[in-house]
């Protein structure tokens, strides 16, 4: 347990140092995201139906905030693995007696924790710019967000696994950005079956809270069951998949992409 904690501290510190040291990159990325949002906002103002403009804007805020979160959690682990495989440090990570998957889970937790602050900031700036103040019901949002994050970690593990065994994974990661966008933007009412994808249900519930003002007591056990099921299912599947990929990489000598 102490070793776990030390592992988490080390990775949290590393992620934080690198983010801080490369602040211009971080800022540029956040600004890019914000510009995408402004573009969407302007689009709604120009061509949208004036009657539903407010609600549309609120949708866009929640969706793009979650898109950013999904990107940070899932896509960045893919990039990180690819970079480390190319630079050679992945092999050193594989040699820790704690196991690579533990390092990876602390990385996932660390990036999420660090980006959480940026995301909250981005949320408030977006609300201020558009003048659309959403219902930030922390007590209702938090449990849903936690369960959603667990399923995102599971999906993150799958992406990490793919990144280990495929050499040319960059193209895949680029496409993945849009898949993630699609999943956060699609409303569940259009395709109810999507509720069983890693984080769609969670985003949907948070939308209900933040836009329609739904409270925690109004969320059904059924909803929580789906969230909980997704969290366990994707995490277990994701981790299993990752371990299989690690094994394949060891058999074929793929831990160093050079």
């Amino acid at each position, binding site marked *: 347990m*102490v*070793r*776990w904690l*030390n*592992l988490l*501290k*080390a*990775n949290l*510190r*590393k992620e934080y*140092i*690198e983010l801080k*040291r*490369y602040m211009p990159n971080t800022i540029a990325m956040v600004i890019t995201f914000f510009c995408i949002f402004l573009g969407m906002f302007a689009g709604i103002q120009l061509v949208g139906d004036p009657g539903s403009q407010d609600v549309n804007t609120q949708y866009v805020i929640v969706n793009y905030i979650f898109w950013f979160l999904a990107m940070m959690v899932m896509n960045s682990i893919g990039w990180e693995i690819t970079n480390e495989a190319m*630079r*050679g*440090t992945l*092999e*050193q*990570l*594989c*040699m*820790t*007696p*704690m*196991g690579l998957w533990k*390092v990876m889970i602390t990385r996932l937790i660390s990036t999420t924790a660090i980006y959480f602050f940026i995301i909250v900031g981005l949320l408030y700036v977006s609300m201020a710019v558009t003048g659309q103040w959403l219902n930030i019901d922390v007590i209702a949002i938090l449990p849903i967000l936690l369960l959603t994050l667990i399923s995102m970690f599971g999906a993150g593990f799958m992406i990490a696994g793919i990144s280990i065994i495929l050499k040319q994974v960059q193209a895949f990661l680029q496409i993945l950005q849009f898949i993630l966008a699609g999943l956060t933007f699609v409303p569940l009412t259009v395709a109810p079956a999507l509720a069983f994808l890693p984080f769609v249900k969670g985003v949907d519930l948070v939308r209900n809270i933040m836009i329609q003002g739904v409270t925690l007591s109004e969320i059904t056990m059924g909803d929580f069951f789906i969230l909980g099921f997704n969290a366990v299912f994707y995490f277990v599947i994701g981790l299993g998949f990752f371990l299989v990929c690690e*094994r394949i990489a*060891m*058999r*074929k*000598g793929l*831990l*160093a992409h*050079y």
Partner: protein
Amino acid sequence: MEAIVEVRNIKKTYKKRKSKTYVQAVNDVSFTVNRGEILGLLGPNGAGKTTTIKMICGLLEQDSGTITINGVNNREKRLDALNNISAVLEGNRNLYWRLTVRENLEYFAGNRGRSRKEVAGRIEELLEQFHLKSKENELVNRLSRGMQQKLAIAVAMLADSEVILLDEPTLGIDVETGYEVRELLRDIVKNDQRTIIISSHDMDVIQDLCERTVIISDGKIITDDRIENLMRLFEVRSYLIRLEGSLSEKQQQLLKQKFPHHQYTEDLAQATLDVDLAKSEEIYELFDILKMEETPVDSIDRKTVNFEQIFMKIVKEAKNGALAQSS
């Protein structure tokens, strides 16, 4: 002495991505390393050294055969085995270039479950020992290749594992730092009681640091012996003979048959004959040839050979042997 690393009959075949052909990189390699020993893994480029090292580190799964570290099978209990292993792999790919010297040390210790506080004292010691104290807050990408290599070895030392593997530790670094690295490694062996496996294609490094060497070529072990034994063996077998006058056609013919690899040179005053004997008894056959024409012998010297020549000879003989067997 007690064996800490045992490698038994390991084999590894790679599949080439593009051509779909197979490369047998390691072919039935077995050796053991004793506790506190420093072993050299010597072989030309492409011999299979890196592949062997990666299998010992558990980074690559062997097709067959077993490797145990301190009695722990490194496939069945991979993570347990890793407790006793740290490694500096080939090239400059063992560190985070965007972190400082100290941050790298702390990060890798953290990845083995240790806190910064726990390792603080040890880090100070290592920074001193490796002459990196003045660079502790420097980003790794600003360091010279040699300093990066020193840091990578320090990181491996910090793991406090019993076995340290170093793949081509002096390759690509400047001569001066190369000597410093050797000096550090000698210190470690003397004072830290670690078991070290060093791979290199540079015999000079191996001769300098190791007591024993496993020579590997084309994925096979061709010899496994103490370096001083190899030196003695070949010293006895290499002769330089100075003759007064020259050898006749017939003598030269016979020499070619008996000792195909000899070298014979003659000038006005004298001739010299340079021969390696496969067995020391062969010296009598050589004398028989000289006696035929009563060629006067001026001097017979055992040639002083360096380890590099020995290495070349061993590899060449192994290749010839393999050819002879296959034909």
